[in-house]
């Protein structure tokens, strides 16, 4: 596990680092601490990370730009902030958790726990997925998302207008962010349930979900039962 802490309050950064080390123990590979936005952006660009713990207000600067960059990356982001009113925005952009200051060890560990657990998202507030384009970050509205296909470390987002976008996060990580209206129906697929028209059973116990746009996507054998129960 490689972790970056972005925080300009030295004492708080040390606290976060200490608790993170305690929580992840041996599974931790590295913890870095950076206290300016600029350095953080450079660091994110050049290092492979699993988790970023981010304060949105660094040296009086607004960390919003850094937030959009961070959520487009493959790693998960947890916000640690003094401004509770930023929580909604943060969740809309797809952060794993929002830890308001001041925080206890328990509250931080609860957030860190989400990184490793398979639990579904704690809110259904996420409204955008940030996709990295050549020079910029494009925000894709969750409303436009039909289904997601895992492609190794990446995912492919299939949108309502028929287009396809690549996302740097893995299917597992997106599953952690997306709300209940999305379902993991296959080891490689997440679909918006309202887009499913019906289930088609093919020979050899192959199950396919027929989507409203005419696409068929496979349903995992193990997922079928749970899905059927939900569906009927």
């Amino acid at each position, binding site marked *: 596990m490689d972790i970056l802490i972005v925080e300009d*309050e030295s*004492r708080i950064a040390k606290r976060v680092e200490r608790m993170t080390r305690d929580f992840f123990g041996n599974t931790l590979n590295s913890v870095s601490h950076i206290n300016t936005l600029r350095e953080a952006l450079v660091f994110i660009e050049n290092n492979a990370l699993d988790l970023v713990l981010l304060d949105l207000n660094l040296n*009086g600067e607004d960390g919003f730009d850094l937030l959009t960059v961070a959520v487009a990356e493959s790693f998960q982001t947890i916000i640690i902030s*003094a401004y509770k009113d930023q929580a909604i925005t943060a969740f809309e952009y797809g952060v794993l958790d929002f830890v308001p200051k001041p*925080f206890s060890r328990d509250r931080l560990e609860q957030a860190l726990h989400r990184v490793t657990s398979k639990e579904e998202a704690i809110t259904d507030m996420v409204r955008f997925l940030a996709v990295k384009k050549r020079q910029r970050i494009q925000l894709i509205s969750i409303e436009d998302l039909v289904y997601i296909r895992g492609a190794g470390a990446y995912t492919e987002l299939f949108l309502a207008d028929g287009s396809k976008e690549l996302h740097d996060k893995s299917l597992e990580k997106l599953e952690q962010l997306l709300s209940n209206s999305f379902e993991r129906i296959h080891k490689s697929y997440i679909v918006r349930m309202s887009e499913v028209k019906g289930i088609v059973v093919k020979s050899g116990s192959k199950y396919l979900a027929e989507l409203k746009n005419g696409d068929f996507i496979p349903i995992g054998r193990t997922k079928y039962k749970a899905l059927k129960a939900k569906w009927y």
Partner: protein
Amino acid sequence: MNLRSLPSLLLIGILLLSTSCGQAPEVFKEHQTVYQIGDNPTWAKKVLNDGNWERRMELIPEGEIFWSRTRIDILKAPEELRPYGLQIDAYGEYEIFWDGVMIGKNGNPGQEAELPPEGELWITYSIPTHLATEGEHVLALRLSNYYFPDHVGQYEIEIADYEDLLTDMLIKTSYMHVFAGAFLIVSIYFLFLFLNNRKEYPTLIFSVCCFFICGLVLIVFSKDYVSIHYSVHVIRLQILNSFLLGISFLIPYYFSMQFPYARRRLSLILYAVLLIFFWIISDHAFNYKTVGMVLSMLIFSFGIVTYGAYKHARGARLVLVTLLMSIVVFLASGFVVSLYTGLGLILLGMLYLLALNIKDQRLAYESSLVQSTRLRLELLKKNIQPHFLMNTLTSLIDWVEESPKKGVLFIEALAKEFDLFNQIEDQTLIPIAQEIALCRAHIEIMEYRKEINYCWEEEGIDIEQTIPPGTLHTLLENGITHSLPLEGNSIKFKLVYESNSDYKCYTFLTFATGVRQATSREEGTGLRYIKARLTESYQSKWDFVSEPTDHGWKSVIKIYS
């Protein structure tokens, strides 16, 4: 509510004045008056050949006695026991004969040089009923005009019911005194307003204008109950015209203050010269003087207010309407009526402008109160805004958990800063020492949070000085927030005070690296706070510069004396 009652009082005054001018049909007809120098008791007789008498008399020197004869037709005989009265307005001391019968004596004709002045300029006598029959009569006067020998024969005669003559005069006089009284009250009221706020010169001018109008009316209408000898009449007219001179100057001056324009001073000087010219021309041409001054005043005021309306100055249009109305009244009615009605209307316009000014002042005052409250809240907010409070509490939790003893010291530092804020929160200026103590307490807190060595230095501080609360504290906050430590993990702040006869100057220096240009919202708020505080305490007599330097950042607050 004195202001509200003024217009209605004026209106009543004007209405009463105009109704009192309504006249009953004339009961007499006056023929040409003729004159003869000399003294002969038979010249009083009704029947006399006065065909060779003079129609005009230029000059009768040395108080010589002369006679005048005026044929008068009585058109309607008086009712029984209701005698007619004869009202005469004539220069000189005289005896009055009606159809050869002496009906009155006003002074001592021919003896003016020896005896003290006696008699009145305006006087009313009753005509015995049996002498006032319908038909032709002769009014003969035996006069001398010692004091104004060149003012002979400008008589005004009025014949009407004796009682009516006296009461009409009194009624008119009392109405006009009510009118004058209203102006006096308004004048005193606005004088007090001015005394309470000595910068408001329009209030004073308005007050003086009202006083002059009051004076003018009193002088004009006191003649009916104060006996005035014809020898002092010129003095009365001079006083009257002096009031009018003042009014004629002050009204356009007032408008020029409310609706300023280019070359105001020059135009006012030229106008004053014109007025003084009218004032000093020919001693006895009082009517020309008065009309000249009033017309100039109307025209000049009209010009200024029209310009104001053209420039869309507030209230100019309404004032223009009142001026136009007064000009219309001036053109449409007699001079006396129009003078008071017109002045009343103009003063109403001026009052309206004053009311607008007072409203502006009240709004400005209210907004300054709001601003002060806002600044006070902003100062209080410094310690409860989430960035400060939550980060402090998070650090504090950590200190308490990891090193309880240090945690306690941290809490003490926090308590110190909170205590200082409590002491200063409702003040607009605090001793510089208190502000510095606040900065030091803040530094202590930030050391626990940031674990950076902050260093505070002072130079030339004069502890007698005061400063708006939170100013240096805000600069310090910005310095801490936007700076990264130098090598050796330290940031230095230095406060330098300099003063001379022109200004006092605080220079706040931050020695650090990575200080960036101020762009963010938070810092904008901080600088706005400082500027608003400086304005609150020093109005516009301050300068504030905040800029990067080689070593970090520099902020300079200059307060001019």
